[in-house]
């Protein structure tokens, strides 16, 4: 297991890169997923269709395919960026479909009377969603949303695999490949690196869940 100690710096940089990918993707996925969830419950049929189409298309496509389509497709239409941002974009788009569905389950858990009361005092659809429904929906969606984000942290390995260097997965490849270290100890290190991220994420979610839980 010396490989762990000797390469601690490398592993640590891997953890930080994976954290960066996850943070940016997570924020992107939360924003886009919330918008799509709003579409899916909106009173406007075309918007509902866009939301449903998005979820169907993205959720049913393997992440690696999404990533390759972005990495090879965007330069075709003259959009160029560092590969890191292609990776982040792909992971955010992919995860947004799952965020959308988790949020929608939460929206459906809020009684229709809440939205009716909001509409009855003259709030618009957007205000009803933002002021009344979503704040209550977030309470029920913390556990399923947590699943989505922890899965996303691990999915960042695929972002590494398709070419974003320096993340935890890439560190493993580098150590076992070009540096010729034994696979199992290296991979144990990689797994521990992901735990460094996912266990605090789980604790944070537990804290959030207690914090937003109010009697209804």
């Amino acid at each position, binding site marked *: 297991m010396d490989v762990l100690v000797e390469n601690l710096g490398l592993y640590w940089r891997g953890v930080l890169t994976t954290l960066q990918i996850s943070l940016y993707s997570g924020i992107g996925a939360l924003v886009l997923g919330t918008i799509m969830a709003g579409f899916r419950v909106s009173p406007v049929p075309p918007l509902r269709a866009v939301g449903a189409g998005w979820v169907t298309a993205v959720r049913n496509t393997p992440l690696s395919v999404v990533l390759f389509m972005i990495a090879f497709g965007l330069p075709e239409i003259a959009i160029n960026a560092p590969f890191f941002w292609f990776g982040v974009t792909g992971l955010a788009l992919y995860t947004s479909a799952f965020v959308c569905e988790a949020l929608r389950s939460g929206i459906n858990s809020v009684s229709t*009377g809440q939205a*009716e*009361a909001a*509409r009855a*005092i*003259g709030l*618009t659809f957007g205000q009803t969603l933002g002021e*009344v429904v979503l704040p209550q929906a977030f309470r029920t969606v913390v556990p399923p949303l947590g699943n989505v984000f922890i899965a996303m942290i691990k999915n960042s390995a695929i972002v590494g695999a398709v070419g974003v260097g320096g993340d935890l997965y890439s560190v493993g490849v580098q150590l076992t490949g070009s540096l010729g270290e034994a696979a199992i100890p290296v991979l144990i290190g990689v797994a521990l690196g992901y735990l460094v991220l996912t266990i605090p994420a789980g604790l944070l979610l537990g804290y959030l869940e207690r914090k937003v839980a109010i009697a*209804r």
Partner: protein
Amino acid sequence: MTDTPMIRMASVDKHFGDLHVLRDINLEVAAGQVVVVLGPSGSGKSTLCRTINRLEPIDSGTIEVDGKALPAEGKALAGLRADVGMVFQSFNLFAHKTILENVTLGPVKVRRNSKGDAEKAGLALLERVGITNQRDKYPAQLSGGQQQRAAIARALAMKPKVMLFDEPTSALDPEMVQEVLDVMVTLAKEGMTMLVVTHEMGFARRAANRVVFMADGEIVEDAVPEEFFTSPRTDRAKDFLGKILTH
């Protein structure tokens, strides 16, 4: 009293699938009038109430509030709803907001009042319905009667032209019915235009200008309370009154 009725429904029809819930409804409520809608369950009285602010869209006919036809879904409809107060059977207070926040949300977000002004007006309303001391509690911490009074205050905070009550006391424990009715009677005496779906005959006698009796989606009778209770014209009304007045 002005010539334009506050609420006007003409030839309104609505179906829920095969069920014809509203049949050719024609109803006018003049400004300042209190109309009580009675009828057996399933007669369409709640649906009628909910069509007036378009929580239930109608199939055909017209509905006007203060001379303006109900707009389709969108900003204009939201604007109209702001002028039409609604009180629900199950209160529907915003569960994640305190009582005071419930009362100030509409004035701040819809009327664009400042938070300070909205709170001042909100506290005055809570005072009026007698729950000032509950201002910082969440709805689940209040009794049903207190919640419903808060819901009335929330509706009044929008300074509505007309108030709709959809069975406001049906979900309450018996000992809490009176405190809610008292608030409603006061409101009626102050000249608020009200349409009240209820089973409370006492309220109908004390505060209503008119009683509308519905059965099977139709308005069967439309009379002053005394006349309706003492000499109903139709068998269906007699049957209904017989059942509820003898228990």
